[in-house]
């Protein structure tokens, strides 16, 4: 009962806060005389949503982007976890690679996304790669921090118990690094969406980023809004999934 009440309270707050936002938005578009092709009303956007939802195109493009995002996330996650583990374990590897990693983090992905399209073609791979690239850094950093935060005493314990390499990874490092790692994944999940969209912006004929471009090309700002909102919801959904994962895997931390 209490849990349900608490949940309702939380949801209530979100709904309240969204309602306030909607009202402000409606008021803004009503009392300023901005034309709807520059800033549509909530009602315009809702109508557009119904229309693209009904003809199935919204679902289609959403699934395309979702696929890119999930594959990009998987790829970025895998690469970052492996590299992160190596970097956390070896100072030498870290020294050789870290200039590139810090530099790569400061390259605007928008500047290199076209190169990826050239190299990988206009298909899904270039989007997966932009997505993976943008996911890489935060996950990498948190993997390193996570592994380095494993208490030395627990390493000593494992050593004194004569644990082998794999047992150390599975029974100690993974569970101990998980909280920090999942924190990186939270950020990574939303970034993955942004990465896929950047890839789609450069050149694509499907996906929500493409739909944004279509809306812009047709002066259909409502379509732009519907697409952007869908992207936000996608990102929030992924974020929520990670939070859910956290609540499952880190239930031992819940009561902190």
């Amino acid at each position, binding site marked *: 009962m209490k849990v349900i009440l608490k949940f309702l309270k939380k949801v209530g707050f979100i709904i309240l806060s969204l309602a306030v936002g909607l009202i402000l938005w409606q008021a803004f578009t009503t009392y300023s005389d901005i034309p709807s092709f520059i800033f549509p009303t909530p009602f315009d956007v809702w109508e557009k949503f119904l229309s693209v939802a009904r003809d199935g195109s919204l679902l289609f493009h959403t699934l395309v982007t979702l696929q890119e995002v999930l594959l990009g996330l998987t790829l970025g996650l895998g690469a970052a976890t492996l590299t992160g583990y190596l970097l956390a374990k070896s100072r030498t590897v870290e020294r050789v690679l870290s200039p590139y990693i810090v530099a790569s983090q400061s390259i605007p992905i928008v500047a290199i996304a076209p190169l990826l399209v050239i190299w990988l073609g206009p298909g899904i791979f270039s989007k997966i790669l932009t997505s993976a690239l943008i996911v890489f850094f935060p996950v990498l950093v948190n993997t390193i921090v996570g592994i380095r935060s494993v*208490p030395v*005493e*627990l390493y*000593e*314990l*494992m*050593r*004194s*118990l*004569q*644990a082998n390499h794999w*047992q150390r990874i599975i*029974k*100690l490092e993974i*569970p*101990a690094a998980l909280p920090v790692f999942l924190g990186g994944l939270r950020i990574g999940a939303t970034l993955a969406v942004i990465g896929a969209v950047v890839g789609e912006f450069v050149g694509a004929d499907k996906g929500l980023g493409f739909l944004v471009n279509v809306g812009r090309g047709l002066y259909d700002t409502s379509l732009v809004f519907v697409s952007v909102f869908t992207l936000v919801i996608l990102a929030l959904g992924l974020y929520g999934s990670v939070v859910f994962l956290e609540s499952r895997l*880190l239930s*031992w*931390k819940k*009561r*902190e």
Partner: protein
Amino acid sequence: MNSVNNQQPLLEVKKLGVTYTDEKGSLQAINEISFSVEREQFICVVGPSGSGKSTLIRILSGLLAPTTGAVFLDGSEIKKPRQGVGIVFQKANLMPWRSVLRNITLPLEIKSVPIKEAESKARELIELVGLKGFEDWLPQDLSGGMLQRVAIARSLVQDPELLLLDEPFGALDALTREKMGAELLRIWRARKKTVIMITHDISEAVFLADRVLAISPQPGNLRLDLKVDLERPRHEEDRFTPEFVGLTQQLREAIE
């Protein structure tokens, strides 16, 4: 239970010396200590901070190799962590994501003991240390005294011959500490282990041990090897007897 020659001492420390060396220079932590320990003895080691007590435990447990000299367990030299030695650290050193039961089964899991068997052994020990009913609790929900009980149970689960304790009650308050001491004696009597325990507290050492080793600081030297001939079982009131007071004063002088 044990095929080796029982006349020979369980543990022999021969001209042990330890020097730590790092970038900043080197530091002699222990300077030629020799002693030996008979089976089923309860030994306490006292000494001020920095006298190399923890270093000694690390050597005995095989986590650290001696710089000079050697240590023999059952006649064979200790070179790395091995079966038959249980360790309890100052911090209980439990895995926060594992329940009480799971923390205690950990050493058996690492030895690939079937989980059923591991659990039944662990339950036995949980009863021994007085934690029945707390099997599924997480470390964060336990008090300091309870945490140390779990750590002790974990160190016993492989049925080691030798139990090494590095200031196991250092983090506990005076009252809890006294209770835990009595508890440890009870377990020691029930299981008939050889125990080497480090402590800051001279009164605690005399109360618990058959023999107290006093170490002087920097580099650690064995100053006094004191036999405690007080009758067992001992009681709180014994602390105020002239013999008890005499022994503590002897030790106090040795390490100051």
